[in-house]
């Protein structure tokens, strides 16, 4: 008997050990080292690796592996928040003086790709340059995010491994902006122009070669400051300009990973149906479709006319028609559950453009009549749009919606080269637009897009009341009170039709299932570092 028992016990034990042995890689899966990842890139790098000089994912995505931030959103967590921020060049950080001073304690023994040591001077140099401090030692040629640092009074480097950001007033969100992919540290000893043709960083990968118009190749940085990272031997970003070819390349295995924000619902359905080994993760892009209405000139300096236009556009139909269901409705901040600050469903439904289409359109007609437009005197507007499919599709949809309330909208196609000068001079009536926001954070969004005088406030909408609210939420330290303020701002913006939000794009991010630890975040701009990614091949 006992022998049988022993035998059974042994068998069970053996089975258990076997199970553990088998299941360990299945559950925990120890990362494997080696291999080269082939990554989709939709166009050649505008301005090379100089992330600070662009506002496009076409630069951030392929340049991120070279560089490092002070802090960054945990690459393995899809949902970003203050709590998922981890140290990168900064080992630790601490808020002092009631969110007025932000102190970073930097890692020691970090070297740049050219062998020079990294110190606090590099940090001060970079962010003084970005905020255009009077004593900055370098100047960016193009500087789209200066406003993020408007509240920074001084940056101090008391010793080689400490940096202090001194603020004019409390601003907890500063850390969120510093954690974005848009906020890398440049080397003080490298001229800023050199980042347009090459890259000296402290990141997990070193640039091996940039073949113009063709590819960017990276090799592993063996001196990377995190031991055991990166797992991959190299990265290859392949520039494929034609969209059909891009996804054909992914589907046929020429690429392992898609480009952030490029995967629409329809494409994902097609690709995964044909190739089940390709996995899709649905993520917020933190990019919204919106309609710019020039608030500085008639007819859209009249809030009634703006609101009428906003009422006429059926948001849910836009999600269906323009995105085949691959988007969600929402106001100025990314909607729940994708974003942290989105309005509640009931608040959203009371905004213009969310009610029953027929009723909303009737209200739009009434408002237009009040403003003096009707069948005898129809409102005629010209929509300026760039010759890019996403803008054209969106514009075609809007024109058709406006037609139903008696607004005759015509399209004026303009070249990319002309758009921003026109927008800056406010020489347009209406325009379809895409707005991408680095981190899901009210400061990053509101100061850039709605603040009076901001260069990227294309509509010229300027409200003293809203400005006060924006400043108030920025320094509010109580999370609940801040959320209430942010909701209030969003409602006000939509009611004023400051920049009517049509929808928020979802990314159907695709990768082959042998690509591990590449987690798309709720913003396309923050997860391109690649140090945790490994290949299960």
């Amino acid at each position, binding site marked *: 008997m006992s022998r049988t028992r022993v035998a059974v016990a042994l068998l069970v034990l053996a089975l258990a050990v076997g199970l553990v042995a088998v299941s360990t890689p299945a559950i925990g899966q120890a990362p494997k080292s080696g291999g080269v990842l082939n990554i989709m890139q939709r166009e050649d790098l505008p*301005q090379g690796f100089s992330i600070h000089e662009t506002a496009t994912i076409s630069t951030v995505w392929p340049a991120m592996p070279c560089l490092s931030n002070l802090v960054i959103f945990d690459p393995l967590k899809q949902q970003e928040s203050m709590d998922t921020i981890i140290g990168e060049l900064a080992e630790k950080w601490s808020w002092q003086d009631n969110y007025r001073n932000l102190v970073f304690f930097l890692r020691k023994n970090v070297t740049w790709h050219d062998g020079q040591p990294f110190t606090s001077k590099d940090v001060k140099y970079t962010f003084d340059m970005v905020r255009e401090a009077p004593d900055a030692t370098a100047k960016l040629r193009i500087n789209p995010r200066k406003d993020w640092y408007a509240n920074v009074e001084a940056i101090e480097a008391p010793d080689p491994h400490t940096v202090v950001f001194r603020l004019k007033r409390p601003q907890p969100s500063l850390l969120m902006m510093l954690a974005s992919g848009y906020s890398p540290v440049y080397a003080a000893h490298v001229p800023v122009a050199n980042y347009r043709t090459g890259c000296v960083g402290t990141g997990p990968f070193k640039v091996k070669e940039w073949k113009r118009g063709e590819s960017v190749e990276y090799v592993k940085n063996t001196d990377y400051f995190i031991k055991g990272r990166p797992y991959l031997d190299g990265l290859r970003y392949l520039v494929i300009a034609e969209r059909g070819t891009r996804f054909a*390349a992914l589907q046929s295995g020429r690429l392992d990973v898609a480009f952030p924000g490029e995967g629409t619902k329809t494409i994902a359905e097609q690709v995964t149906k044909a190739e089940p080994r390709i996995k899709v993760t649905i993520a917020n892009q933190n990019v919204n479709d919106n309609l710019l209405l020039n608030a500085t000139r008639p007819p859209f300096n009249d809030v009634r006319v703006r609101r009428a236009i906003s009422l006429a556009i059926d948001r849910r139909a836009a999600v269906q028609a323009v995105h085949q269901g691959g988007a969600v409705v929402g106001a100025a901040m990314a909607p729940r559950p994708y974003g942290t600050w989105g309005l509640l469903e009931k608040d959203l439904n009371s905004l213009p453009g969310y009610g029953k289409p027929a009723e909303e359109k009737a209200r739009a007609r009434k408002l237009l009549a009040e403003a003096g437009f009707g069948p005898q005197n129809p409102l005629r507007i010209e929509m300026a749009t760039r010759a890019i499919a996403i803008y054209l599709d969106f514009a075609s949809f809007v024109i058709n919606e406006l037609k139903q309330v008696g607004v005759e909208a015509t399209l004026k196609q303009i070249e990319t*080269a002309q758009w921003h000068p026109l927008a800056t001079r406010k020489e347009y009536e209406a325009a379809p637009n895409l707005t991408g926001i680095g981190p899901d954070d009210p400061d990053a969004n509101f100061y850039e897009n709605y603040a009076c005088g901001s260069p990227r406030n294309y509509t010229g909408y300027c409200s003293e009341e809203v400005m006060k609210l924006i400043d108030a939420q920025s320094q509010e330290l109580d999370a609940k009170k801040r959320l209430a303020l942010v909701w209030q701002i969003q409602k006000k913006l939509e009611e004023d039709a400051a920049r009517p939000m049509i929808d928020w794009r979802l990314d159907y991010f695709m990768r082959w299932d042998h690509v591990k630890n590449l987690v798309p975040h709720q913003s396309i701009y923050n997860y391109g570092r690649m140090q945790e990614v490994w290949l299960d091949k």
Partner: protein
Amino acid sequence: MLTLFGMSVVIFLLLRLAPGNIVDILFATGGYVSEADKQAIMKELGLDRPIWRQYVDWLGEIFTGNLGKSYRYDLPAWEVIRPLVPVTVELAILSTIIAVLLGVPTGVVSAVRQDTALDYALRVFSLAGLSMPSFWLGMVIILALVAWAGWIPPVTYVSPTTDFKIHAVQFLLPALAVGYRSSALITRITRSAMLEVLREDYIRTAWAKGQRGQAVIWGHALKNAMLPVITVIGIEFAFLIGGLVVTETVFNLPGVARFLVQAILWRDYPVVQNLVMFIAIVVVLSNLAVDLLYGWLDPRVRYGD
């Protein structure tokens, strides 16, 4: 030479007529424009100088063999252009070979069997190639390949020294698509030239003397019909050097034409100017080659008369 000079003026002026310049595009990637900074960058790039000065400077650069700097890449323009040239030249040569192999026999058979069902079938086949937009054909090929085979040719350029087999596969598909299109022109001209030659007395004589039909057709007649065919081949080759914009885009080959479109959109004047001049020089050279071939094939043409 005079022609090339004229072309340089035309292309230079046309580019500057286009609204916006590189600085607008640079600011577009930043999402805003600052007038003051814009002026500074224009000055840095030399775009603030009068147009005639810019032109004279460029001419000077051409003569010193230094082609100026790419505005976009901040590199010597020649360094940017150089890797593109072999790709396009190889694609053009391959396509031309395929077009000749396909077009000449089709044209001959079509002429010999004039107004038969075979003639009609061949002409419809070849004209169909000329009628399909090349970008559409390329797109359909890629989409069909991935749908049915789950495979497409490599999307980055593989040099023949790295892996000749992959290189060959990568070029063969686009060359077939392009060659099919070009073959239509060659078929057409071969057919009409052959028809004319076949009516000539000496061919009838050869036939009457009992020489075998095939030998007469492929030997005497074809040789005499080759002159106009060579002209068309020359024109077509020159066209292929700059005309494969969409084919290069769809098959993602880093060639001259695809890059040229990007450079035009970016208003990267030095790259565009030099690329267009390169294309123009190829056109002039291939015309010259055709003339020389003419002289060699047809003893009646002698230069210097």
